[in-house]
């Protein structure tokens, strides 16, 4: 399912004295099966964009296409359930949204809300719990007896059980330790590939964006500042740094090294392995490839 934002504008509390322009003239495409990272610092508009992806917000100008459904500014939209069922959002700290008595009931809540039968919802819960790397015996427990990391996985299972075609992740690894971070990111990447999901990752982490995304979209002050593949985006790291954004540590290190030597080292490296090769051949006097 493709999602497309076409020249959208969004104003919070429009037509009131508190009106605030959050997005202006934003256009972007999320083709079916792609992995897109949206980056920008606090207040850049990335969370506002996120809420347009399943029509939690409707643009004050422009059009949003979600699959075959068109959501246009100034029109009353009815029956958005079908859209929201297909686009699952994992919000920041999703474990704060757990509320049911048992893990199973909590996971079943989403699908049943969309009209799935209890039997089917339970079947999906038992699949989803394993997809997030937990065992089925957890289904009977209270979500509040679990560790923070397990709670987060249960909350993610709740979104997966809706069997969405697009999954939107808002800082999914915030607060996790390095191992937990890697496990969660690998889990989403696996699902992305196995189920051919479209994945949208909203993050501060340039490392994750560089490692997993096909395309990176940089938001700045409510507009799209730049978009491109990771190597395109990071070929001009200084512009990002000047905007107060991070770049992956590999990119930052290469930049510092090039500044120290007063020379470019050829290609833009995105992994420590690539950088090691480039630096080694550079120092040994070989031609940097």
């Amino acid at each position: 399912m493709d999602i497309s934002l076409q020249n959208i504008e969004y104003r919070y509390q429009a037509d009131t004295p508190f009106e605030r322009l959050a997005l202006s003239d934003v256009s972007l495409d999320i083709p079916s099966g792609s992995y897109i990272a949206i980056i920008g610092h606090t207040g850049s508009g990335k969370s506002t964009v996120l809420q347009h992806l399943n029509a939690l917000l409707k643009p004050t100008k422009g059009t949003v296409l979600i699959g075959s459904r068109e959501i246009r500014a100034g029109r009353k939209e009815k029956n958005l359930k079908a859209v929201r069922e297909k686009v699952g959002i994992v919000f920041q700290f999703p474990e704060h949204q757990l509320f049911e008595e048992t893990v199973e009931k909590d996971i079943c809540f989403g699908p049943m809300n969309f009209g799935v039968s209890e039997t089917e919802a339970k079947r999906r819960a038992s699949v989803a719990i394993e997809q997030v790397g937990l065992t089925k015996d957890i289904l009977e427990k209270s979500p509040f007896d679990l560790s923070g990391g397990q709670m987060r996985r249960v909350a993610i299972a709740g979104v997966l059980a809706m069997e969405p075609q697009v999954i939107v992740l808002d800082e999914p690894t915030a607060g996790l330790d390095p191992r937990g971070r890697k496990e969660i990111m690998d889990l989403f990447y696996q699902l992305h590939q196995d189920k051919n999901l479209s994945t949208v990752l909203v993050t501060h982490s340039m490392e994750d964006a560089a490692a997993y995304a096909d395309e990176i979209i940089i938001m700045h002050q409510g507009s799209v500042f730049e978009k491109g593949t990771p190597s395109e985006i990071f070929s001009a790291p200084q512009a990002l740094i000047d905007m107060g954004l991070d770049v992956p540590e590999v990119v930052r290190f290469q930049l510092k090294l090039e500044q120290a030597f007063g020379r470019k080292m050829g290609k833009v490296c995105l992994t420590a392995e690539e950088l090691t090769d480039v630096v080694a051949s550079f120092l040994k006097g070989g031609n940097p490839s």
Partner: protein
Amino acid sequence: MAKQLVALENVTYQYDDQTSPALKKISLEVFEGEWLAIVGHNGSGKSTLAKILNGLQFPQEGNVSVCGHSLSEETVWDIRKQIGMVFQNPDNQFVGTTVQDDVAFGLENAGVPQEAMKTRVKDALHKVKMDSFLDQEPHHLSGGQKQRVAIAGILALRPSIIILDEATSMLDPRGREEVIGTVKELKQQDRITVISITHDLEEAAKADRIIVMNQGQIHRQGSPEEIFQMDEELIGLGLDIPFPVKLGKMLRETGIPLTKQFLSEEELVAELWTSHYKI
């Protein structure tokens, strides 16, 4: 030898609903003016340790002493005057309606006279560089700014020790830098003792000393240089290695001579530059 401020002896703590203790016979010391980083994976016991230090939890076994007082129901209020804590979520610890009210909150509780309060609020906000935001409301502030206000709220109370309990983990890179920069300055200028609980290894690398927690016990302690020698073992403990250490190791494996392990990018760049002209 610096003065000992905190000492834990054989501290064991178990939560009511758990089958095994969160902390098992922990003994450690914290010295005046040092920056101690406590690292460990989620669930390793590091946050429990922080709560023990200022009496939010009382250990079932062992002894805790802070600034010469042994922690007990009677001394806990004196001990809390010595220790300020900054928590993870910036939005959960902003109680005032404006920046200066928020900093004044703690002082009001402590019964500081109003005139003294005004100067203390201003001084504290000046130290964290938030003095131009006195009347701002919290929702106009970034996460990093809110955390700096939280730090100011603690500074105004003039404690000897600040504990940062994953205080940077919800911030964006810029906010993280702001908070770490602030802490560094406070430590240098005011000789405040800092205990930072974190799983950000880049942050821990800036500390004077690191304690690695694993399954409720102290796994290792030492200087950042010593701790990062542990290399793969850290990854096994659910942690990571700072980037300059990782890259330095990979470069050495390709035959580039490096004199030692480098904890900062700047040092490694300088070393590579020097070694280039030796080859």
